[in-house]
């Protein structure tokens, strides 16, 4: 494909088009350009130029009537479909910065290879990142913030606790009451949290530690209302969000993942409350924090794995009973 020929082609061809036909071509490519911008397909101008050259070359062999134009354009297909093809070809495996993100600061993507996510967490996103046994990657882009989260599904597969295809649809076969029961742990933890605060509040000093160094020395203090309030929000807000996911009857995977997330944050908050109360009582120790972090990962992991195994058992019961009855059906 030599450049001079390409440049000469369209110019000589445009001359042969009737104004009506030329207008058809213009309208079409305006739409293609718009669709490309919307799909963030990258080199919009180049793509439109190439396609226009192609069409005009095709038309050069015809008499250039509107009917010829319509036929040639139909060959290329709808502008939106074309744009989708270009977007497919130019995107990486993560369709991170498409649509409307063109002119705004992206809320998610990668910065120096580190993923970041600033969109409000949704139960869908938590579900896909935290429990995806089909995906062998253990570290997946974080649900909210900078860095990575753990795909507990991949860990469970690595540890041979589940197989990737144990469940057709995660937790879909688990009985609804067991799905609802996943809220038990975070709700009880929340209640204990509130009870503990109520019981100790009067005796707490006015300033409470808000941060510790690794040695267990508090290095930052907040007024007790703020310090406890912060932990209360961290403990109770996820429980409320998870409860709403359950009440709205979202997919089982979303509901379980929301419970797991509430458990994770609730456990962290609870361990920090214990740490704070111990410090106020004169005990300097980091044990609650370490135990809390370990429990924050282990409890949701155990929850997710057990539910997946319940789902698998239900699927097996359904299929194996059906096959054993087959003879009589």
């Amino acid at each position, binding site marked *: 494909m030599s450049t001079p020929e390409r440049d000469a082609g369209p110019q000589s061809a445009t001359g042969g088009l009737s104004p009506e036909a030329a207008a058809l071509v213009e309208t079409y490519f305006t739409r293609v350009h718009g669709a490309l911008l919307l799909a963030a397909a990258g080199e919009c101008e180049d793509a439109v130029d190439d396609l226009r050259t192609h069409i005009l070359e095709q038309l050069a062999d015809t008499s250039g009537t509107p009917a010829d134009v319509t036929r040639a354009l139909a060959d290329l297909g709808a502008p939106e479909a074309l744009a989708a093809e270009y977007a497919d070809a130019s995107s990486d*495996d993560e369709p991170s910065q498409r649509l409307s993100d063109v002119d705004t600061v992206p809320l998610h993507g990668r910065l120096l290879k580190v993923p970041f996510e600033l969109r409000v967490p949704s139960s869908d996103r938590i579900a896909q990142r935290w429990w995806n046994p089909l995906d062998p990657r253990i570290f997946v882009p974080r649900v909210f913030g900078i860095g990575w989260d753990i795909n507990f599904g991949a860990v469970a597969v690595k540890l041979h606790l589940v197989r*990737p295809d144990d469940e057709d649809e995660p937790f879909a076969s688990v009985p609804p009451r067991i799905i609802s029961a996943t809220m038990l742990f975070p709700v009880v933890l929340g209640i204990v949290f509130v009870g503990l605060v109520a019981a100790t509040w009067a005796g707490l000093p006015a300033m409470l530690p808000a941060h510790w160094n690794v040695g267990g020395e508090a290095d930052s203090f907040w007024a007790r209302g703020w310090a406890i309030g912060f932990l209360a929000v961290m403990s109770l807000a996820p429980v409320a969000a998870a409860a709403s996911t359950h009440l709205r009857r979202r997919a089982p995977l979303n509901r379980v993942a929301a419970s797991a997330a509430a458990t994770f944050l609730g456990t962290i908050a609870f361990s920090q409350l214990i740490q704070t109360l111990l410090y106020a009582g004169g005990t300097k120790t980091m044990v609650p924090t370490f135990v809390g972090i370990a429990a924050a990962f282990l409890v949701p992991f155990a929850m997710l794995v057990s539910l997946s195994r319940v789902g698998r058992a239900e699927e097996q019961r359904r*299929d194996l009973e059906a096959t054993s009855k087959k003879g009589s059906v």
Partner: protein
Amino acid sequence: MGTDTDSRLSQFRKGVVELAILALLHGGEAYGGEIVESLSSHPGLAISAGTVYPLLSRLKKAGLIDSVWRESPVGPPRKYYRLSEEGGAEFDVMARAWDGVTGAMDELLGKGNAR
């Protein structure tokens, strides 16, 4: 090999592996581990469990394959996959299209050609 080359290769393998799975199941039902094992015995396909299971899930959602748990002679029950009726028809279409693709590609790559 650059990362661009890698991603280009993995792009076209993804489509091929789907057909490979259909072809394998066309020969009879198989369970996940079996599918992974027999496909990974073809190094050219560069297949791992990480590629097979998502594809199985996708094919099942598309209604091209069915799955059913069966007792295993050794160990716990296994989930077996088989082509659905629709999957069988899809396989015929894709296998024919594949012949067209390989024919064209052999010609373009100058294979089976004296020159």
